[in-house]
């Protein structure tokens, strides 16, 4: 495969072309990105359990979003579509054997852990992440979309590609499993 490189002139031309190829202007993208990037990055990190992979997938998700030919009704529709891209990207990486503890939340590395209240809350978060890591990828996705982002059953069903009627028992099972894992301290 031939490797392509870009000259400075071509690089400048890339921006003109991007304006034509992408589905929004740079200015519109900046405001949309500011609204969504952190949430999507957290979602990706929780779904993959890998901070570096989450960074890569974040870039990939926005790239695919920019190149999409979708006509969006509003910002909510746009946001849901971005999450659908992110969900698909995560599912493409499903083969990874297990979810690891995100580095930035290990107690010994986090300065806020000297405060007992903060430490307790952080310990709960670590328990949650550990328990989430033991769930199936689809269960993690459903629970996050439902209880972190507050999506409706219809929206979650559309995002993961199941019928709304099938989603309810699936969500119930996932929730029950997570509660069980939390009670047992993350052990299945």
């Amino acid at each position, binding site marked *: 495969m031939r490797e392509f490189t870009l000259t400075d002139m071509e690089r400048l031309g890339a921006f003109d072309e991007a304006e034509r190829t992408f589905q929004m202007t740079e200015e519109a993208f900046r405001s949309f990105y500011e609204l969504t990037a952190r949430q999507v990055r*957290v979602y990706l990190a929780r779904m993959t359990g890998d901070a570096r992979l989450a960074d890569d997938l974040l870039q990939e998700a*926005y790239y695919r979003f920019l190149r999409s030919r979708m006509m969006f009704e509003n910002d909510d529709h746009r946001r849901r579509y971005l999450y659908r891209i992110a969900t698909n990207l995560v599912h493409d990486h499903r083969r990874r054997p297990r979810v690891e503890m995100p580095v930035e939340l290990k107690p010994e590395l986090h300065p806020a852990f000297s405060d007992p209240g903060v430490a307790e809350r952080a310990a709960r978060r670590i328990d*949650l*992440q550990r328990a989430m890591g033991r769930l199936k990828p689809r269960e993690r996705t459903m629970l996050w979309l439902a209880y972190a982002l507050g999506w409706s059953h219809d929206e979650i069903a559309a995002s993961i590609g199941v019928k709304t009627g099938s989603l*309810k028992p699936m969500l119930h099972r996932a*929730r029950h499993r997570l509660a069980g894992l939390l009670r047992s301290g993350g052990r299945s």
Partner: protein
Amino acid sequence: MTRNECIHEPFVVEAVLAGQWPEQANEVLVAHADECEVCREVAVLTTLIHDDHERSRFEVQVPAAGQVWWRSAIRARLESTQTAMRPMSWMHAVTAAITAGVLLALVTAAWPMLAPIGHLIWNVVLGYFPNPEVAAALAGGLRQMAVLGVLAVAVLLAAPLALYYVLSGD
């Protein structure tokens, strides 16, 4: 048998996500959640997940919007360049196949004309060397050299073409 769902579940989730649970939430709803197993579980888990989400949002570092835009623009440019080059690669492959076919057809067509050359060599050698054994040995050698010469010409023609396709193709 435990219930799978409760009609109040979305209201509990909404109250937790709005940061109203339990102090500022509807008292009737909070009282219901104390009694309802489903809503109680939903309230606990939503509080945990929402708390994790909110805190992570502030802790997490994301690249600047301009950086993501710039990388995407560069990648789009590279991909469109590759897409534009794809028909050229197809053209190269088609041209190579046609050239090989034409060369093969030429060799096949020219083969009957090469046979008299063998007789010509034999006659010429016989004219110079009347001894049939010496003439036969010489004619055999010359015939082999003629075949090698044809092969060398073919290689000389094909090598630059092959080199061109190897270095230019993807």
